[in-house]
């Protein structure tokens, strides 16, 4: 069985993320605002070199592996 999202080049995580966001955006306004806070997730990384922590950089959405 081939899923439409897979054929479209989305990963399962990406797909569930899109679905969850769509569900949150469809809530009644008061509930929606509380739920939408869960949508904001980010990842930062810093490279350690010679025992020193480098600069924190956010992981760009477009660079994430799919």
């Amino acid at each position, binding site marked *: *069985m081939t*899923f*439409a*999202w897979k054929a*479209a*080049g*989305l990963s399962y995580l990406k*797909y*569930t*993320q*899109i*679905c*969850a966001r*769509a*569900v*949150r*955006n*469809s*809530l*009644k*306004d008061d*509930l*929606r605002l509380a*739920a939408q806070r*869960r949508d904001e997730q980010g990842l930062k990384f810093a490279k350690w070199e010679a025992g020193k922590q480098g600069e924190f950089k956010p992981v760009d959405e477009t660079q994430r592996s799919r």
Partner: protein
Amino acid sequence: MTFFARIVRGGGGAVLRNNNFRVNNTFVTSVRHYAAETSASNNLKLSFALPHQTIYKSIEVQQVNISASSGDMGILANHVPSIEQLKPGIIEITENPNSTKKYFVSGGFAVMNNNSSLDINAVEAFPLNDFSIENIRTNLAEAQRIVASNMSEEEKNIARVEIDVYEALQSAIGKSS
């Protein structure tokens, strides 16, 4: 061989009717695990959890209807063990003949264990009356606009997934009202 496995001769040929086989002088017994063997209760034990909330924690219910990727299905106690991927759709929980609850889930997995316990994990789940028909309609129109526009194919694919969710929401809410 004939001592351990009875061979029944029928019109079509020989059929093995025993699960015991003698292989290299050791017994190999194939054991078939069915839920009925281990369950004492006739009720389904439901756990329904989201990353941020537990909705049911080992609560006995009568029946759960899920919309799986392979189709809609109803689960009762003693269901054969299986794992189903959930698509955006309704989870209908019949707690008892007088009380049925409906949730819309964004997607996840349902795991039926062989002791009549059912674990449902979803990213988001809300009762149907938490949704705003106007917001769904606005979002659907926006997603359809993106698909029809000259945006990148990536944006359009995301919008196509969203359209499926909004349409599932619309039909879920339409059915309940």
